[in-house]
């Protein structure tokens, strides 16, 4: 059984305005690719209505640090009331919409399930994680937190949102 350590949950970004959805999605994909994450798109839902569209995307890209630890960042994105907009003097395809992005980050250990076949192995794993490999676990958590912070800054910068820390 995989041991999931939640680094943070429900970090939300909300935005209403103009955005190029295709470029925004590619930007997020690029971000994960540059940091060595593997793509994992669970759901991509696009609903076309009479006057508007709605897109729901769920991705959980993951990065295997070793054969024991992997980092996961889960993104739930909702693009609501999406309408195509033509801005004067610009050829870029833009859409006006409400964006809601909810971010969670998890540190997964023993994702291959090697250390849970017997109770003694499980005990050993827990003791090692808590006392012997404490530094490694902390370092991996900090790496995950840093990636999530960078992603948040990247998204806010792309959407030209105010960034106050």
């Amino acid at each position: 059984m995989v041991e999931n350590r939640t680094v943070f949950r429900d970090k939300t970004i909300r935005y209403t305005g103009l955005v190029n959805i295709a470029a925004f999605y590619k930007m997020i994909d690029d971000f994960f690719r540059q940091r060595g994450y593997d793509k994992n798109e669970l759901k991509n839902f696009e609903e076309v209505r009479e006057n508007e569209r709605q897109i729901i995307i769920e991705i959980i890209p993951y990065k295997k640090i070793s054969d024991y630890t992997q980092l996961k960042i889960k993104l739930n994105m909702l693009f609501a009331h999406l309408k195509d907009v033509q801005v004067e003097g610009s050829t870029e395809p833009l859409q006006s919409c409400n964006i809601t992005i909810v971010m969670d980050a998890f540190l997964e250990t023993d994702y291959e399930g090697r250390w849970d076949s017997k109770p003694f192995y499980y005990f050993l794993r827990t003791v090692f994680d808590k006392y012997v490999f404490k530094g490694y676990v902390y370092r991996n958590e900090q790496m995950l937190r840093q990636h999530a912070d960078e992603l948040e800054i990247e998204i806010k910068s792309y959407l030209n949102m105010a960034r106050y820390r």
Partner: protein
Amino acid sequence: MGEKIPLNEPIRILYNGIFDFDGVYRFMYDWIIREGYDFHEKRYKDKPDTHGGSEAEIEWECDRKETEYIKQHLFFYFHTRDAVEVEVVVNGVKKTMTKARLEIRLSCFLELDWQNRFKGKISKLFGELLMKKILKWEWILKYGDDLYYRVYGLGEQVKTFLNMSTDKGAY
């Protein structure tokens, strides 16, 4: 029958609108044949004229032998609900398309020792030692990763065909 190892959670593409279902069907079929997979349509369930429209469920299973020990498997699932045929004008030409809720699920897995050569007790141990310890990263990177991203590429092509906004990824 060897051990089947799933490479991904099923990729779900959901679309609600007007699209060319025959086109999607033929497009994906052409992709499978072009890539050299053996095609099996496991199920084709069609419920015409139910409340709200017709419903169809299609399951495809495709496989391709990579080596004497490794076989790639693809599993595709299509589900259309509330489907009605509509006539639309595309580039000045009248075309019959489908207005429906479409769900496509794409998943892939690798089968090790598909010829079941490591049958006996001791042979099985050697087989496991070979595939899970000695050659583990070779087949994961060479065949697993390749198949994994190929399926994602197909998913993006399907999204482009359906004219979805998030069809261009970075991988």
